[in-house]
């Protein structure tokens, strides 16, 4: 993770400069000309952000193809199956979208702290705790037959709040005691899972289910439905909504500006009078809330109860998605869908090519490493550079 951390702070370092430079430019040049130049510059510089990840994807695919050839398997068949299993049929697309729904939210849980310079990997714990809190809050409401809408809103609120607290703890420890947030959030994940197991196997256990310790089931009436016309639950829509809102929050508000300044250079931010500590904790809480809501959807849209099945690794896959999306909330949406597609097609690959499940993990790992390496390429291609705007890297 050290490499990732260096890479992301490198990116963040320069980001705020854009915002500082823009108003200055606007006052010194003619507005219309400036506007046209600005568009050209924007297209060129954003082309870099699209081209380099695509090149990285191509390189990792090439490396993976070599690996397949070494195993005596056909890379062409592999990629054909990935396309077919992930995106080729109406069923495959639904499959992909359903798998990407939790990934958008857990990736946001990594992306938001990353903008303030933190490598927070505790999304899994916040997801589990959020889902557990949602299921727990539901027990008295379901027993008293409270209206489903109110129950679901309270469950979502509980999930978000507990998730926020869970990652918030890592934020507070970071700010107040200087504890490394990567380690503490990872360890908090294990504590969260243990707490859930403790209650699910103890005081909150549904005794009618003797072999799989779980909380009381919600029942059909209290479940979140599917998006009409699809088989994908509402978690996907909420994830996309969160991604858009957080993008606006981080790139178009003073809060977001302060976050990016603090992420770029905390000392400079402090010198400017920015409340860096509060911003750190706020970012962590937002992150935790995203993961907590993902947990709520796992309980309310899928499992119908809280149990060990909540620990499905979505929080960890989210880390990968966020890094691939360069911690940009909007980019997280397509990247999560790409990942959902790779995972969805993984089954078909296993079945048709007789390859172990680890094959798809290997592809994911290769992609991750190549992408991290590709971070060093930004600003090195002349084609993307516009004169006088090198600070845009």
């Amino acid at each position, binding site marked *: 993770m050290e490499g990732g951390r260096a890479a992301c702070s490198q990116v963040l370092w320069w980001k705020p400069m854009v915002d500082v430079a823009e108003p200055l430019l606007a006052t010194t040049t003619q507005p219309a000309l400036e506007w046209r130049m600005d568009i050209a510059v924007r297209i060129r510089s954003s082309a870099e952000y699209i081209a380099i990840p695509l090149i990285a994807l191509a390189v990792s695919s090439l490396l993976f193809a070599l690996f397949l050839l070494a195993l005596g398997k056909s890379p062409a068949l592999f990629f054909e199956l990935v396309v077919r299993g992930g995106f080729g049929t109406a069923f*495959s697309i639904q499959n992909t979208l359903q798998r990407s729904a939790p990934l958008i939210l857990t990736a946001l849980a990594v992306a938001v702290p990353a903008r303030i310079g933190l490598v927070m990997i505790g999304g899994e714990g916040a997801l589990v705790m959020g889902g557990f809190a949602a299921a727990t809050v539901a027990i008295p409401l379901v027993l008293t037959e409270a209206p489903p809408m109110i129950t679901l809103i309270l469950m979502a609120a509980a999930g978000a709040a507990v998730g926020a607290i869970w990652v918030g703890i890592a934020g507070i420890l970071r700010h107040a005691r200087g504890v490394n947030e990567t380690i503490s959030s990872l360890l908090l994940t294990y504590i969260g899972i243990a707490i859930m197991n403790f209650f699910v196997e103890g005081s909150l256990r549904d005794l009618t289910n003797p072999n*799989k310790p779980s909380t009381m089931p919600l029942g059909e009436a209290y479940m979140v439905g599917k998006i009409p016309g699809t088989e994908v639950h509402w978690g996907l829509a909420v994830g996309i909504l969160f991604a858009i809102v957080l993008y606006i929050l981080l790139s178009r508000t003073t809060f977001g500006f302060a976050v990016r300044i603090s992420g770029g250079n905390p000392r400079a931010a402090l010198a400017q009078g920015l409340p860096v500590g509060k911003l750190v904790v706020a970012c962590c809480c937002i992150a935790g809330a995203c993961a907590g809501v993902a947990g709520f959807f796992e309980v309310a849209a899928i499992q119908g109860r809280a149990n*060990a099945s909540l620990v499905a690794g979505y929080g960890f896959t989210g880390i990968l998605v966020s890094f691939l999306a360069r911690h940009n909330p909007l980019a997280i949406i397509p990247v999560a869908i790409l990942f959902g597609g790779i995972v*969805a097609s993984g*089954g*078909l690959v296993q079945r048709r090519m007789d390859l172990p499940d680890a094959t798809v993990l290997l592809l994911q790992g290769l992609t991750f490493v190549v992408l991290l390496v590709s971070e060093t390429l930004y600003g090195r291609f002349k084609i993307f550079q516009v004169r006088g705007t090198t600070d845009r890297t």
Partner: protein
Amino acid sequence: MSQLLVSRRSFLQGTAAGLVAAGSFSRQAYAADVTIGIVYVGPRDDFGWNQAHAVAVQALKSLPGVKAVEEENVPETDACAKSMESMVNLDGAKIVLGTSFGYFDPFMVDLAKKYAKVEFRHAAPLWNASKHPKNLGSYFGYLNQAHYVDGIAAGLSTKSNKLGFVAAKPISSVLSNINSFMLGAKKTNPNAVVQVIFTGDWSLPVREAEAVNALIDAGCDVITCHVDGPKVVVETAEKRGVRTCGHNASQAPLAPKGFITGAEYKWETIYKSYAAALAKGEKLPNMTSGGYEADMVRNSPFGAGASPEARNAATAAIAGLKAKQPIYVGPLKDNKGKVVIDKTYDNLDPYLDQMNYLLEGVVGSIT
């Protein structure tokens, strides 16, 4: 399982031969009449639960006209529903087998409603005729019978009269294995006691190793377990120089010196019966279960740790179980002194499925 290892190695060695055969094989596969889909929660080579199923699927693949499609490491979320659906939609599976407990409700129940023409079967006794669709069902084996045979052999293999049991969670199926193991040991060695440690979850390798060490330090000289993948337990015990009994699949290759025998499922009996029924166009049973009397469990071939007496006693016990001799001969007390089994129960009696106690002779607590 040892079959699986060998097949893998020979696969690597025989790639050339494989390439030649590939054309004809794949044509055969596509001409298959019945496609069976199977979903595992962990890796197929875990020396445990998943491997036991994978070995049976391997046997199934050898049948003419049967094609099996497998998917491993599928979590108990909607991912498992989508994997199964993908088998139905993209592979044309006529029957889908879910092998992990959490796949059943809500995922397989919903799928069975959605795909009324596809049969779904799940490896735990959860199907209920009044609640669940008719194209859904359950299958499972009474593994406690094989643990009883383990106990018979273990009772004759111990010098300290202390047997160690590493268990995952105190739920009825686990408790029934512990109690049966103890009753088997008592049968051949009235002085034997079984000491149990619960690790708290199905797969906690570090804690499993700690538990084995703690049991051996407490004087146990035969170790067995009920966890998802017994690899760590068996290897740790072998390293400490004590004997072991296995669980789920054969761990014999992991303990060349101390392996006695092990409790194994024989899923291929069930899977082959499903394939045969589908080929004939018959309706599959909704509930399939049994123990030795139905050839649904077995004991691993004896290892170097099994003495001739242990082998003879175990072989005799297997013959007894095939003739439906009861394991639970009442009255029996739990380890707090309360009579919990009032009379002798048949090996498949549903009363025994509700077990929530450790019998006298087991040292340990479920709370």
